[in-house]
Every structure is written in structure tokens, then in C-alpha cells.
């Protein structure tokens, strides 16, 4: 007991936040300042001696690729951000970056592009200089542009060896007919091959999205807010805001189930069941309720996992969850099935569990344990500045406000059995289904199976 008390005292001293801070999932204050040009600057001091993580979130991703033939462009542009400026041409940029000894890279997804560096806190000035220069003054050559396109093609080539990646491309285009979520962040291969011809569009893309109002700087580690704000003002203060407002066409309602299939011999049969889900919000209970529900339904503690993976061993693994996204996206349930002839059985078993979730409330202790799991999982993962910056970035690109992380976890605590039944009824609807399959067969049709009628949509 003494040890526990000591630990709590040390923990409290270590956190050194306000009393309110103790109630938040992130035990460190999130210090924010918005510059006059609209750039949000976030500092989280964290005791990592000598080390800091420096992230820039751009709230533009493949969702913003609204023009035909330009799929994959946000990701391609992320590559171009490493191709130099007048002040620091590519070679010089690389050499200076190397001199910081930082681990630096970038990645793109549906709704955002993320640039990150983790390195010595005393190199922060250099990091700010490099990032501010390329975010404001990127100036690559046409030749450099064309050459970089081959690297993107190489990336597609390596990724597409995976049948899961191939299926993801097909599910996206099957599930979304009008929204840009219909193409993957990687884009279509034909558009990637055509990328070298899109130089002018790339300049337009830069003008649209690489603007202070689309970006947030996040610095976590051995820093003070004063220093981070000072560097932000010094290097990013003169950055001019833009005028572009991204107008993404929303998806038209889906009226019937859709299917897509990949024939793959010598690969374990797989099914990916997708329902249309909600957009992320920390202002209502839909997404938090789905998160708690999906953890109960698909974690290693779930009845489905115990039945399908451990006892019957019909599945090699199952997983499920609602993806956080700015516009409504997918609630996806994946199952690797040991034998193709069990695909229908597995699907029916999963559908029955989803149907049951609509009317049968989960026990209070199950809900309490799941909330505890969510809290402890988060606490276990934040023992370094990089992982904290990653977590803050995710909520920043979703809402524009890193405090959303604390609001979201606070909502988890409020989820009730009724909330979960409500979201199950609202979202597990067969008319919004898109099911992707991988089997050795040319095609796969659940409907032809004798037990094909899914037990679903029987609303109360």
C-alpha cells in the first residue's frame, strides 16, 4: 500500500497540472496559441530530457482530391515537400536535416497529411527553419517533379503485393460513388502513371492547402510554450493565409448491399464487412458509443473472438471498428477464415452478434471494464513524446482542436448500454453494407448459400 501511495504522489508531482488536468485522459496540459495568420501552435511540455517531437498537421488528404484523374495527389504532394526551396535546395535540405540527427518523415491518409520530426530539443530552431521554409516557399523543378512520381509508383508497386491492399481499393470504390473516399489515399495506378504530367496542378495544390489555416504545429517534449511560440512567430509569423475552401461532395445514400471480390489462390480466405458509419465528432455520443461497442464485440475478450477464433477455430483472426474520419466513412469488420466453406457461417455469426447488439443491453460490468481498457490502453501508450504527438495529431486533423482528445475520452465515460443499442440500430443496416471477399474462387456469392439471409435490420 505504501508503494502505491508513493507512486500516486510521484505521479501527481510528475504531472504537475491543474486539478482539472487530473480528470483528463492526457495528464499533461495542452497549451495552444493561434497566430494572427490562423496557424495554431500547440505545445505539450513533457519530461523527455533533451528530446522533442515536432509535428505539422495539414488538414488535407485524399478526401480533398476532388478533380477527376488526380487520385493520389495529396500523397504525391507529400513526397514533393522533400524536393527543396530556393533557400534550401533538395541536397541542402537533406544535409541540414541529417545534421539534426532527427528521425523525420511524413505520411498521408484520407483527411490529412502529417510531417514529423523527433530529435534533440536543442535543434528545434533548425527544425522550425527547415519546415517554415518549405511550407511557405517550396519550389521544386519540373524535372524533380517528374522524377519523384516514379517513387510513388514504386510505393504502389510494393504495397499492392498484399491482397488486403488490393481489396481495400475495391471496397472504397464500391462503397463510395460520389464522395472522394471512393478512392484510396494511394490513388489509382493509372493516375499515378500520369502524375509526371501534372506539374501545374501540383502548384495549385500547394497554393490551396499549404496555408496557415489548414495547418497546426504540435511540439511535445523538453520544451516550453514560450520558446515554441517564439519560434513559431519567428519562422511562420509572415505566412500568408489562403482563400481556398475545400468543397467535397457528400456521399449519396446507399440503398442496397454491395459486394466486391478478389480471386486469390494460395491466400487465406478473407471477408471485410463494412457499414456506413458516422463522421467523427466529440460533440455527440455516436462515435464514442460505437468505439465502446466495437471493443466489446471484437476484442480478445469478446464472445465472437472466443467462439470463432478460440473455440470453433473457424477464423484465424477477427477485428472490427469505426474509422475516425471528417466525413461519414466505414465501420469495418474483418475476418480471416480458415476454410472457404465456412465464409457464410462466419458472416452469419457476426451478423447475428450485430443484430443482438441492437436489442440486448450489455451488462454494466462489461461496459465498465471496456471503459477501463480504453483508459489504460491510452495511458500505457504515452511514455514518449512521439506517441503523445501522434495521439494529439489524430484529434487535431479530425476537429482542428487537440483538446478533442480529452473531450472524446470524457465521452467514453458517459456511454450507456442504451447508447450502444441506439448506434447499433442506426448503423448496422443492410442497405449500407459493402462486403469485400478474397477467396480462391473466381467469384463469391453469399446469397447463393442456403443460410444466406443475414439476421439484420429487424429494428425494434
Amino acid at each position, binding site marked *: 500500500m505504501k508503494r502505491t501511495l508513493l507512486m500516486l504522489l510521484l505521479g501527481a508531482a510528475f504531472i504537475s497540472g491543474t486539478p482539472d488536468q487530473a480528470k483528463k485522459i492526457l495528464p499533461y496540459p495542452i497549451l495552444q496559441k493561434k497566430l494572427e495568420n490562423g496557424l495554431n501552435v500547440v505545445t505539450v511540455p513533457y519530461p523527455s530530457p533533451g528530446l522533442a517531437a515536432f509535428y505539422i498537421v495539414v488538414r488535407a488528404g485524399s478526401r480533398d482530391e476532388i478533380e477527376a484523374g488526380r487520385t493520389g495527389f495529396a500523397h504525391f504532394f507529400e513526397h514533393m515537400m522533400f524536393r527543396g526551396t530556393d533557400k534550401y535546395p533538395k541536397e541542402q535540405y537533406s544535409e541540414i536535416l541529417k*545534421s539534426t*540527427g532527427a528521425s523525420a518523415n511524413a505520411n498521408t491518409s484520407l483527411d490529412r497529411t502529417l510531417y514529423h520530426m523527433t530529435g534533440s530539443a536543442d535543434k528545434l530552431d533548425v527544425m522550425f527553419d527547415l519546415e517554415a521554409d518549405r511550407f511557405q516557399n517550396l519550389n521544386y523543378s519540373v524535372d524533380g517533379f517528374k522524377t519523384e512520381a516514379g517513387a510513388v509508383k514504386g*510505393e504502389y*508497386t510494393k504495397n499492392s503485393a498484399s491482397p488486403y491492399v488490393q481489396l481495400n481499393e475495391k471496397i472504397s470504390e464500391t462503397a463510395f460513388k460520389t464522395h472522394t473516399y471512393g478512392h484510396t489515399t494511394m490513388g489509382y495506378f493509372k493516375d499515378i502513371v500520369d502524375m*509526371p*504530367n501534372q506539374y501545374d496542378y501540383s502548384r495549385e495544390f500547394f497554393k490551396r492547402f499549404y496555408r496557415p489555416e489548414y495547418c497546426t504545429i504540435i511540439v511535445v517534449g523538453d520544451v516550453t510554450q514560450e520558446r515554441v511560440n517564439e519560434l513559431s512567430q519567428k519562422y511562420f509569423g509572415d505566412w500568408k493565409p489562403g482563400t481556398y475552401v475545400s468543397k467535397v461532395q457528400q456521399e449519396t445514400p446507399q440503398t442496397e448491399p454491395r459486394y466486391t471480390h478478389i480471386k486469390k489462390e494460395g491466400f487465406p480466405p478473407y471477408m471485410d464487412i463494412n457499414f456506413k458509419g458516422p463522421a467523427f465528432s466529440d460533440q455527440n455520443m455516436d462515435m464514442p458509443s460505437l468505439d465502446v461497442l466495437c471493443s466489446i464485440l471484437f*476484442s480478445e475478450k469478446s464472445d465472437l473472438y472466443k467462439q470463432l477464433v478460440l473455440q470453433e477455430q473457424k477464423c484465424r483472426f477477427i477485428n472490427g471498428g469505426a474509422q475516425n474520419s471528417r466525413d461519414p466513412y466505414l465501420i469495418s469488420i474483418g475476418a480471416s477464415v480458415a476454410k472457404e466453406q465456412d465464409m457464410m457461417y462466419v458472416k452469419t455469426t457476426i451478423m447475428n452478434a450485430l443484430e443482438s447488439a441492437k436489442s440486448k443491453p450489455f451488462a454494466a460490468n462489461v461496459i465498465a471494464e471496456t471503459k477501463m481498457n480504453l483508459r489504460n490502453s491510452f*495511458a500505457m501508450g504515452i511514455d514518449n513524446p512521439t506517441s503523445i504527438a501522434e495521439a494529439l495529431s489524430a484529434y487535431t486533423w479530425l476537429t482542428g482542436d487537440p483538446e478533442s482528445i480529452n473531450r472524446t475520452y470524457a465521452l467514453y465515460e458517459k456511454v450507456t448500454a442504451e447508447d450502444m443499442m441506439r448506434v447499433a440500430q442506426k448503423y448496422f443496416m443492410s442497405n449500407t453494407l459493402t462486403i469485400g471477399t478474397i477467396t480462391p474462387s473466381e467469384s463469391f456469392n453469399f446469397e447463393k448459400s442456403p443460410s444466406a439471409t443475414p439476421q439484420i435490420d429487424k429494428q425494434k
Partner: protein
Amino acid sequence: MKKIFLSETIATIVLFITFTINATAQEVVELRQPEAAKAVIKFMFNNGSISDPAGKEGLTQFTTSMIADGGTKTMTKSQIDDALYPWAASISASVDKEVSIFTFECPSAYLDKFYPIMMDVLTSPAFSKEDYLRIQSNQQNYVDEVIRSSSDEEYSKKALEDFLFRNTPYQHMISGTSIGVKNILPDDILAHYKSYYSSKNVLIGLGGNYPADLAARLKTDLQKLGASEKASQLRRALPRPPKGLEIEIVSKENALGSAICMGFPLEITRSSNSFAALMIANSWLGEHRKSYSHLYKKIREERSMNYGDYSYIEWYDNGGSNMLPPPGVPRSSNYFSIWIRPVQTAVGLKKQYSELSDINIGHAHFAIRMALHEMQKLINNGMTDEDFTSTKTFLQSYMKLYIQSTEKQLGYLMDSRFYGRKNYISEMGDLLESVSLDEVNETMKKFWQTKNLYVTIVTDATEAEPLKKSLESNAPSPMSYSNVLKGSMTPEILKEDKEVENYPLNVKSVTIVKSADTFRNTNSDPNGKPVQMENVVPEMKMVK
């Protein structure tokens, strides 16, 4: 846990050497952080896949999974999952060639409740029939299907190890072979557990926030594991010396690109002080996923050929996902390697660009030439003073990033012991500080060469035969740029291309292997019976 290396003065060629592991009480590595929210507890057993008996390849992986992912005599796997769930505690395990590591993580507040489950998992596994069937099915599926059909790059790396270590206990994949996994019976697992997961064969690692008496408690409780010293008899071997460029092309249906790996035995490991010098040279040549490394610049950035090109002076686990090298894969048997990420095939380029309709092969031959050409130039010319200084400075900071989390820091400290060091990261920092340019250039000349390598290329079935002919005949392999790209190539690049397309490679053999036939040529015959090893394995020399 100390290892005794054979000295360089031993002249006789032996088939295998014996690594001696002192039979002492368990050593403990402690990384106590009273302010942390969690505790990380690791157990590193000095037995990896090299302890798999011939004909039962995959047994160590299977046994380790049965412990970490199965039930115990008092709790089923399902009951363990239920207990861990609210705490978000985790039990995981990894197996490499020479070690198996169990990692237990738990919020410190629940450590008292977690401890008995952890000890139960480790010292009292159930080895139940249900767990056996589940794990066997999944492991079999991995070696039969998943490795061949998920990532051509990972496939190529596994194929290279199969080639480098052929006819040694290091040859087979850690998950085993198709025949080997089929042959593993419940009794084999029990016997393997008793022989190798012993209190005489384990290094304990404690990290984060845990009580001061935990080490003593663990030492006592681990006595339940028994005291087998069989791990001390494990045979270690260097990879086979390649004779020229020995190339295996793995032919697959519908492969989009050619995934290339190549390597040769390397006599030194982290144990050697010369490793710091080689680390600087390697970082300049091909630092993992860094745009400022030389191979990346030449192949990806200048020529637009693929996603990246890197070189390694030790095994880098799961390089496709990891930006920084993870701990937990220490090896005494080492090799140098180059990883060229998939380049385009002829059939792919023809589909993309009508102007390339008459090409015969894709970019693989040129890429291999380019990589070896640049490496040989580096060996011949040495690093410049400027490159040496910038790379050394980079590494001195960069290595500190390997150990950002408690788990990683503890893992690196435990790996340090494997190599006879106390703290690899800090000791390497000191060595980097003191190493000179001359030492780097001399070390390269001593340990690196480009004439004798094993090469594996996973590629499309249509590419295999023309590529084989091109490699065998050392035919010129001009780069086939699309029209849209050709105009962007500088005269310097095009001039260098001319030199590289004719760069002579010391090719001695090129074999095409169908995907279904890979990983078959192991220590056991097709029925799983052990076969006599060829006398090709050199003595193990650990150079300090």
C-alpha cells in the same frame, strides 16, 4: 550469460561451433523509473529458431506461441484474456534466430494482480489440444501461404536468409517450413519447453515502475522452469561464403515488381569495436529509409526507379514498418545486406508506356548493377572527410532515438548483454566519438566486397527467364526511361547510366525457383527426416 567467442587464432575449419553460456543464476537488467505509469518485464531465452530440430523446423516459434498465446494449467487462454482486458495489460512474444523473448506489460497499479498470471504463463503453460490446433493451423498457413502472397519484399528477405544459411540451422524461416510445422507433435513442444525455456538460460529485464524486490522474487519463482543447460550446446554458424554472385529468381504469378535482396557473411557484430566504423560507412551508403543515404539518392531520387534502397550491417526486423531499428533480434551470426525495394518489370513498363514496347527486361538488372557499382566505389575511394563528419554526427544523435520508450530502452539493454556489452547505445556513442576516417575506410576494405554475394529476386513469371539470361550473360542492361521522364535526366545521370549498364557483375549462377518450391531445401528431406549437412560452413570467428 557470458559468451566465449572462439579466438581468431583457431585455424581448423569446424562445421559448427559451440557457444558456451555460463550456467549461473539468472542475470537481471534493471531500468527502474518510479515516475512511470507502467511496468515492462521481459524474459530473453537464449534459444531461437536455430534450436529447432531438423525435420521439426518451426518448433521454437510454436512452443513460444503456445506459452504466450495459450492457456496455463490454471487458466484457459480465454480466462487470461478476460483478466488482462480491463488493465489493458499485454503478453507478447517474439522469436528470432538465436533468442526468444517474452514481454509482459501492465499498468503499475495492477502489477500485483498481473504477476501471478505472468508467472503462470511462463512456468505452467497448459499446452492444451485446443491451443495446439489453433496455433498449428495459423503457423502452417503462414509458411504455406501468407509469406508467399503478402509482401514480395518480406518474401525476398526470407528467401535471402534461406539462401545465405542453406544447410545450417539458420536456414529455415523462424516460423518453420511446410513439412517441419506439420511434423511438430504436442510431445515435441513439451520436450522443447523443458530443454530450452530453463532458469539457466534466461536473462530477466525489468523496466518502468515496479517494486524494488521484484528481481529477487522473479529469480526465486523462475526456479520452477527447471535447470536444463541444453541451450549451451546450440550450434552457431556463419552464413555460407558465396562463390561469385549466386542468384535465385523466385518466379510468381502476377507480381507487379521485382523485389531484390542481396548479402554476404559479415564477421563482426555489435560485440566488435569495429562495428562503429562500419556503422558510419553503412549509414552513408544506405541508412534505413533516409533520403540522405547514397543508394536512395542514386536509385530512387535521381532515377525514379522505386520507393527506396538501403543497406544493413545486421538484421533489421520488419523494416517495411519500422522507421527505427527495434531491439530483440540479437545475432552472433551476421551478414551484410542490400534491400532494393520493388523495381518495375518489363511487362509492367510495356503496359504503362507504349514507347517501351520493345524492352526485354525491367529494371532489376540495372538496379543490382547500380547498387554494387556505388558500393564498390565507396570501398575503393573511401568516405570524404565531410561525409564522415556529418554521418558520424548524425548517428550520435540518431541512435538515441532508438530508445525513446521504456520497452525499447529495456530491450536494447538486454541485447547489449547478448553482445557482451553493458549499454550498447552509450558505448557505441563513445566509439563513434573516437573513430577516425582512416579506421572507417580501412574497416570497409576489410569487411566489405561486391564480388561474392547471394542475391534473391522475387518477380513476375514473365520477367524470370529474360532476367536470368541477361544476368547470366552479363549483357548490357540500359535503363528504360519513359519519354516523360527521359527529358528530366541530366547529362551526368545519363553518362553514369552508360557506365552502370555495362558494369561487369561476377555472376556465377542464376537459378529460377517457382514460388511453390521456395523454402523446401532445408535440413530435412521431403518427409521431414534430417539429412546430412554439407561440409560448407566456416568456423565462427567473432572479431573484437
